């Protein structure tokens, strides 16, 4: 790494090279758009867009080089710490991890407090429950992913088992509720535990054959498992309805009291005027409660021997076995528990949508949930919550970026660039916070003051 900043000429040359590559890439992809015109397809040239893309790449590269060079120069001035146990080099880090400790400790209560008051705040800000529907719906969506993230966190973050097929358990939960309620007429409150149970059983079923696998191999098998479940749902038409899915799934009731107008509805029971938003608000608090249960159970388990065994398993499987820990049982419980929470989330999904189809359970969902866990900093509850807000709420923000139209022209739809921005955000994350947003770990037992386990000790790409 060259410590001295590069001379301007070299910098320009380097950035120019990048712009050239960007030009080469964007010519076939961006430069012409096909439109349906009067005489068939017409080509609309978009050279202005190509030019602005190349310019953006050019400028960003210069900015990146400047930042990186300055950092390298700074690193060259301060000697690299060899062993972190040496007090001198550990000192400056202590201050930083202390502030992060505050974040990871206070973050979760703050998040919960905000989540609890969101419907009220939204209603006050928009002037009524119905106008606030967009925000509450968004809250439900985000909380669903928070819950899925927390569930997967048990498997990936704590036990260190890379699971790419988590959406399978989400699907099992959703179809469990859909089938049990439409075929047998069971209520949501009976189906919810059953759905969790079924998903947990499937977790064990997946767990058994993959017990001997680790890392990449485990990831491949779980990926295949997710696809198998989806394909079964598509092809087992008599039971699952095939690609058409299952429709008119009964809606959630307030512990048996339906949300409807009339004397036996929820509004009559509590003496309010009927408002369809009551159901939405109820769903919001339902998923919030489910997510919090997931979080509390995980936090509690981390303090029990089984939770410690998960973490030890992630750190070193061989040492675990030598200490007399049954790694088979430990892995299976992690799979089963993670799957169970996925199942709960799935049945919530079904009761909220009133409709399930295999479309909702494709690999992209698994990838998003895994990305939430990884971006959050594996193992951190608050980190997962923040990542879920960013991953699910971020794209929603793009809908509101109307001012970009004045920059890029009337036809510009920021939504089309969702995935592009997403990718950029991911790359930026991996450069600046490769171990996730909240990467410190707080020990579960301590004598006296608790200290966070610094992120420096977390290997990149590991929990």
């Amino acid at each position: 790494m060259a410590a001295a900043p590069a001379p301007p000429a070299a910098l320009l040359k380097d950035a120019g090279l990048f712009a050239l590559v960007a030009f080469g890439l964007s010519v076939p992809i961006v430069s012409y758009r096909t439109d349906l015109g009067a005489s068939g397809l017409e080509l609309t040239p978009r050279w202005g867009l190509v030019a602005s893309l190349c310019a953006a790449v050019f400028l960003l590269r210069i900015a990146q080089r400047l930042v990186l060079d300055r950092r390298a120069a700074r690193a060259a001035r301060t000697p690299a710490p060899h062993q972190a146990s040496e007090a001198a080099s550990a000192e400056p880090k202590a201050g930083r991890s202390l502030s992060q400790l505050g974040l990871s400790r206070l973050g979760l209560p703050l998040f919960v407090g905000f989540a609890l008051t969101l419907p009220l705040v939204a209603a006050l800000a928009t002037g009524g429950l119905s106008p606030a529907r967009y925000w509450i719906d968004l809250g439900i969506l985000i909380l669903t992913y928070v819950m899925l993230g927390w569930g997967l966190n048990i498997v990936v973050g704590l036990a260190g088992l890379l699971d790419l097929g988590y959406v399978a358990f989400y699907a099992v939960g959703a179809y469990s509720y859909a089938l049990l309620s439409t075929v047998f007429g069971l209520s949501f409150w009976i189906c919810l535990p059953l759905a969790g149970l079924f998903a947990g059983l499937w977790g064990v079923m997946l767990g058994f054959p993959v017990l001997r696998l680790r890392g990449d191999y485990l990831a491949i098998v779980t990926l295949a498992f997710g696809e198998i479940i989806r394909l079964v749902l598509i092809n087992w038409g008599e039971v699952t309805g095939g690609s058409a899915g299952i429709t008119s799934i009964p809606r959630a009731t307030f512990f048996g009291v339906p949300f409807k107008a009339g004397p036996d509805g929820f509004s009559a029971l509590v003496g309010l005027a009927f408002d369809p938003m009551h159901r939405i608000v109820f769903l919001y608090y339902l998923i919030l409660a489910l997510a919090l249960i997931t979080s509390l159970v995980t936090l509690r388990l981390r303090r029990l021997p089984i939770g410690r065994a998960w973490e030890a398993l992630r750190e070193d499987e061989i040492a675990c076995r030598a200490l007399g820990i049954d790694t088979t049982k430990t892995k299976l419980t992690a799979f089963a528990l993670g799957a169970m929470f996925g199942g709960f989330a799935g049945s919530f999904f079904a009761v909220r949508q009133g409709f399930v189809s295999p479309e909702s359970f494709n690999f992209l969902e698994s990838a998003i949930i895994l990305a939430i866990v990884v971006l959050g900093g594996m193992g951190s509850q608050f980190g997962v919550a923040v990542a879920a807000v960013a991953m699910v709420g971020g794209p929603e923000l793009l809908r509101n970026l109307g001012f970009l139209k004045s920059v890029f022209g009337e036809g510009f739809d920021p939504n089309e660039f969702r995935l592009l921005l997403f990718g950029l955000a991911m790359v930026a994350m991996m450069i600046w916070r490769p171990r996730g947003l909240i990467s410190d770990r707080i020990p579960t037992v301590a004598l006296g003051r608790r200290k966070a386990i610094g992120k420096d000790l977390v290997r990149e790409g590991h929990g």
Partner: protein
Amino acid sequence: MSGPLLSLRGVSTYYGSVAALRGVDLDVGEGEIVTLIGANGAGKSTLMMTVFGAPRARSGTIAFAGQDITGLPTHRIARLGLAQSPEGRRVFPRMSVLENLQMGAALHDGRHLAQDLEKVCTLFPRLKERLGQRAGTMSGGEQQMLAIGRALMSRPRLLMLDEPSLGLAPLVVKQIFAAIAALNREEGMTIFLVEQNAYHALKLAHRGSVLVNGRITLSGPARALLDDPSIKAAYLEGGHAPVETVPGEA
């Protein structure tokens, strides 16, 4: 007290088709320190891991306290009262020292945790200072102490140590070997010590064996082995009692 605590009879272990151990016989009696010395790649660590069932012995029998453990899974073997400080220490790096020690006591659901913790901290006072620190940030010597302490937390009948001197400074090696000697002297702990550092190991042990290419070529009282000319030539660098045999930073 009938036969030896741990006994290996004709144990052979293979990695694929490559033999790592060829018919090893070995006994460790209650209250003894037995050391196994040998060069790199002689099969010392393989022997220790074979006792723990990973890799599994292809032939021969391994018995612990009269019970055949040859076919038992690793965690069941550990539950019988064998504990090890594995090669390379293998502490849980992101977990605190205290959590590491708790993992060692995982089999006892915390019944005598405080008492055992006190004992380990007396044996290795350095660990007491560092209970809240994450294990991966400690020095090699401290990690080795932790690995031994973690093994002791399970209240084992037999403590197996794989190269506790590996990559440590001479002074730290001395501390660790002193602790091992104290364990045996004061608590009668049975210890099986795998070492490359032949001089220190033989000084410490009651009996010793030499492993060459997966076979035991020489066994006897440690004193006698120390004076054996062939051992002197092969492992003690010409008979000097060299501090230099301590391997440098690995």
